């Protein structure tokens, strides 16, 4: 028994040790640094973290980071769910479509951002085409709503989310919907009350992954976003250029906290859905 108690930590050591070294240690440095306890610190203080919420450029930067994470994630969700549903059906060209829609997954974010820039920038490719029919592109690069950033993120995230959600829908037993329909549920009701709840773990996982990916998005906001406010990802890079590590630690810690809150919400939502499903039998 005592031997087993010793064996378990030893068996776990490589995996846990790797995680602690590669994830835990940098996280520890970031958090302690933001509390003024790092190598550059002057002693424990919450002021550096408070600055992120008190200083206008940081506070607005945080809001911009959240906007760049939430807006494309929500929009992606509205496209990816119908698309994932469509992929469950059989239609002519389905196989080709199934292969083509995944292509953006293989394109790096920075390339996607440059593609959007050259296509939709004023004076860009689309603009040069439209000019022949007397039209011009509206300003959607460097605009205050970050439309270019959102378009670029959507282009990357829709296939990503569709892939995960299609898998979740595909895992639902095929007789569930017919059973619901035979009991009198409309097509919409069967979707909302049967399919969507059953696919919810996949939907929430995809949403979470897209959110976390987008909140640290750097390339698209840097190329396509408005010059102000700058999301925290860009401000972290600027702080790095100026050697301001405390600002980097503080912004990083706040972004981590936000991501953990979303992760917590994901776990809570998943647990509630599973509980509800168990209760409903």
């Amino acid at each position, binding site marked *: 028994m005592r031997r087993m108690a010793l064996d378990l930590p030893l068996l776990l050591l490589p995996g846990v040790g790797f995680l602690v070294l590669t994830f835990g240690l940098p996280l520890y440095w970031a958090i302690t640094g933001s509390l003024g306890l790092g190598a*550059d610190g002057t002693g424990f203080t919450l002021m550096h973290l408070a600055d992120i919420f008190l200083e*206008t*450029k940081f506070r*607005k930067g945080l809001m911009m980071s959240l906007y760049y994470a939430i807006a494309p994630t929500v929009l992606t969700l509205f496209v990816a769910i119908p698309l994932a549903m469509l992929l469950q059906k059989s239609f002519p060209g389905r196989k080709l479509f199934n292969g083509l829609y995944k292509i953006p997954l293989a394109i790096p974010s920075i390339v996607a951002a440059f593609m959007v820039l050259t296509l939709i*920038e*004023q*004076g*860009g490719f689309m*603009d040069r085409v439209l000019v022949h029919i007397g039209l011009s592109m509206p300003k959607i690069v*460097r605009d205050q709503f970050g439309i270019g950033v959102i378009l670029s993120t959507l282009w990357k995230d829709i296939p990503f989310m569709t892939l995960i959600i299609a898998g979740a829908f595909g895992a639902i037993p095929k007789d569930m919907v017919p059973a619901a329909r035979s009991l009198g549920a409309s097509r919409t009701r069967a979707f909302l009350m049967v399919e969507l709840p059953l696919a919810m773990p996949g939907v929430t996982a995809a949403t979470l992954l897209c959110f976390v990916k987008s909140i640290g998005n750097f390339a698209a906001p*840097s*190329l396509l*976003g408005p*010059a*102000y*406010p*700058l999301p925290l990802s860009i401000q972290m890079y*600027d702080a*790095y*250029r*100026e*050697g*301001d*590590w*405390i600002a980097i630690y503080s912004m990083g810690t706040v972004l981590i906290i936000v991501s953990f809150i979303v992760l917590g919400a994901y776990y809570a939502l998943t647990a509630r859905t599973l509980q509800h499903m168990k209760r409903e039998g």
Partner: protein
Amino acid sequence: MQLKCLAASAAVIAAMTGAAHAADVTGPAFGDTFNVTDTSVDLSQLTRENFYDVLVPLAKKDGEMTFYSYWPPAPLVVFQNQIIPAFEKKYGIKVHFNSVETNVGLPQLDAAYKEGKPSPMDGYFSSDLPADLNEMANIRLTDILPNAADLDPSLAYEYRGIEHNGAYVPFHGNQTVIAFNSAFVKGDEVPQTFEDLLAYSKANPGKVAITSPLRGGSGSGFLTAVSHKLMSDDCVAKWMDLSADEAAADKLVNNSECFAPVWAYFNDLLETAQITNGNTDTLNLMANGVANVGTAWEDLTFSYVMGNQLPDTVRVTILNGGQPGGAEGAFIPSNTANLAAALLFMDEILAPEHQAWKLAGFASRSPKTELDASLIPAEAQKLLVPADIYEEGRISNANPVMSRVVRDAFAANVLDK
């Protein structure tokens, strides 16, 4: 945090050195003693006169050295194709060359310095100085390098508002400018003053591109130029005080009326002008024909035109009142392991034949007074600021802490509105 450290270092250095740059050329550039870890060279005895006699044998013993350069196209080519081959042939010292961005190379140096290890490079052509100036060898290079004898004094001891007192050797002159496409902006329309620029923008909404001071040097340079022009003399004097610390900067920028006309000008201008995400972003808007006028760097605009990335109708000028300019340069890390070779190489980069080659081939301005733009082929001359405007138009920068406080205030008073 490190900016505060840098400002403090700069202030201490400014106080220690004062204006008497050439008082003791054999003493350290800053601090009481030389800070180099390689003690093979007796720096207290090194002068312009005995430079080669002392260093050549020691440098040959080093046998090799490593030089870093950040990205600008012209210096990269000049280092690789001209200076390094000539240096290797002349002294038989192998130079390992790496192109490393400033924001990558300086942290490498910082890490090695803090660990007490030799620096990864023996010389670095960088766009910034290390945050901790003690990471630079505190040698009055501009006073003891034989090839530095004819350096423009205004470039020899200070860089972007930091007094290094000769430890940073100016190499590649650059200048913030107003670029305009002469195919669309003709004759009287070419802005000569800040008021002209504002008027042009109002008459042609969306046709003026201003680089955000938060994202590019041509933008922060333009902010400096506007401030220089529109503030009172008293405010300019306080603003250009190189020893100003965070408190002084905050008092001047946020708790006085000094910058009110500057914010008013920008708020007016940005009603019709576009603000961009960087120097290249501005030039891209001009390349796409969206903007006709933009804030830019002279050397970058030149490279773009020569590389057919901008129409050859693009020209540059400096607005009346001046725009910031200077010269990027190279320094020797204090923890170099090949000091003699590094010193010899620093001298080589200022050799007249290399500087002339750089000037004639790439219109890369020289910090040496004896080499002027007349060496540049006539065809390329038209892409540079006209000589009479250039001589009068160059102004310097405030110190880094002041510049950062002004940028933050710009965000709050202009961009946030």
